[in-house]
């Protein structure tokens, strides 16, 4: 079953075609790596899938709803975490959870019970009443991710979620991603780190607004006779016409 289906999805800004007839599917519960160099169009494509931007032409169905005609329905069923870590620094951990959960219509009692479980799982019960500002970056990112999936969305979009953290924390972060995927939540992730691309079930690589390849990391490496995703990526990026 597919949670994302796009058909010739296109976005033009004036004469510039940021996203060029992109067609792909993302299956339920998979970890989908969405790669591409800067300016390849992945942020624009992701904004369309999240209902933040309307496609110029083509179609995208996310969580069973058309993003162009029913962005509000789409928004109800997705989670999102951006490269900028985005919890409120001057609110407490618990206040952040309550605010975001409330936005997705969760009942106060439900929020209370679930956040207790979440904090126990993260082994972060002491942090409940701390201001987010006082936490180390690694914790902030783990929390931001937990908040993004707190309302059990069908898909969570992660826009370069591990930027600027050390490898150990990154590894821990990916443990969380695996747990979430096991719960049946689809993970749609963009990243700069090619070692992270190896962790994905399937990856797509965008070049000049088009999805150039889409397959599992193993298949891609086999096809390009490469030893790592890094090599695959460099091979494809060589063909770019945009700098």
């Amino acid at each position, binding site marked *: 079953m597919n949670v994302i289906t796009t058909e010739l999805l296109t976005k033009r800004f004036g004469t510039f075609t940021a996203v060029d007839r992109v067609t792909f599917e993302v299956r339920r519960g998979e970890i989908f790596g969405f790669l591409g160099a800067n300016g390849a169009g992945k942020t624009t494509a992701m904004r369309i899938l999240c209902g933040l931007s309307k496609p110029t032409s083509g179609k995208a169905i996310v969580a069973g709803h058309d993003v162009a005609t029913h962005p509000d329905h789409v*928004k109800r069923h997705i989670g999102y975490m951006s490269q*900028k*870590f985005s*919890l409120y620094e001057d609110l407490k951990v618990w206040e952040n959870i309550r*605010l975001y959960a409330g*936005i997705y219509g969760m009942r106060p009692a439900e929020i209370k019970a679930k956040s207790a479980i979440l904090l126990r799982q993260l082994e972060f019960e002491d942090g409940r009443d701390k201001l987010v500002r006082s936490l180390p970056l690694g914790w902030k990112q783990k929390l931001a991710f937990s908040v993004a999936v707190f309302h059990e969305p069908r898909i969570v979009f992660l826009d370069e979620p591990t930027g600027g953290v050390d490898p150990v924390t990154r590894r821990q972060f990916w443990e969380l991603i695996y747990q979430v995927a096991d719960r049946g939540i689809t993970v749609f992730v963009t990243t700069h780190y090619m070692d992270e691309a190896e962790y994905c079930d399937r990856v797509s690589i965008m070049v000049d607004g088009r999805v150039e390849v889409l397959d599992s990391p193993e298949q891609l490496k086999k096809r390009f006779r490469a030893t790592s995703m890094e090599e695959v990526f460099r091979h494809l990026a060589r063909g770019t016409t945009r700098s």
Partner: protein
Amino acid sequence: MNEKTTSGASLFGAFTHKEIRHILRDRRTLLILLGIPVIQIVLFGFAITTEVRDVRVGILDPTPDVATRHITDRLLANDYFTFAGLFSSPAAVERSLRRGEIEMALVFAPSSPGRITRDGTVPVQLIADASDPNTAALFTGYATNIITAAAGELAGTPEESPARLLPEMRLLYNPAMRAAYNFVPGVMGLVLMLICAMMTSISIVREKESGTLELLLVSPVRPFVIIAAKIVPYLILSGINIATILLLSVYVLDVPVVGSLFWLVLVSLLFVLVSLSIGIFVSSIVRSQVAAMLISGMVLMMPVVLLSGLLFPVENMPILLRWTSHLIPAKWYIAAMKKIMIEGAPVLYILREILVLVGMGILLLLVSWKKFNDRIA
């Protein structure tokens, strides 16, 4: 449907709660916001004053007689002037002026008795330190009036000079010519603009910078709820500030509220809404808090100070600046406030100001809304 509306209302509550938290946790900013009106009123009321008091006067009177003494006494009897020395030569007067020991000199010509002629001319000279031209013009004006009156008393009875016209001035609404009547409405305009426009824009742009706004836009919450919730705490703060300014002006500066308090508050709220829309508009065109602060501070505050009539009369400005001043919401608000507070004018007299403010508010909101939607598309 019903469930949707209730959840909308509770969401609005949750967001308002969050906004109030933001403000309460930022103690320093809160303190500044609440302190600003007090500081402004105190500054304008006691420090920055355009009224003239205690001008130091030197006297040069080579041949004193009844007439010169009468004029001198009359001048020094006035509150505005204090005696600062008797001089014996014009050179001494000049030295003293240059050193700043005196600000004005009253110089009589050495002459025979009967100097004050029947046609009322007085051979007397006022020398003033005009390095601050406004002040010098003001106090030489006062002095001239006093001397003329004193000379008139000496010249004798009206029958002897039947052709003399003596205009009698009546200063309406502010008989004591107190500056407070002018600046209290001005400070209200300034403070409300500062809090509403600057703080709203900064608080919205802060969420842009931190990325939280993006997170909210990806969520099902309506942008209207986010913005409306942002406005609420600043509305409350503005209310507190209006109350502070009014209480200070009535009980500390003795500026009475002559007109209707109801309309005063209502027009103030209208201006608050216009300022909030300016804040929302600014936040829609800038990306960083610094830019928001600069635009609010320089592009919005400076014209309010310079062109709203708070410090300088707009009527004397070049036509281009006068036109520009019409674009400044605070100008209309301050004008309306003066009419209500000081003149006690009925609301019909400020209909034009009210309509202009309403129009500006609607325009700004429409433009911001359009900009916002452009960003989404």
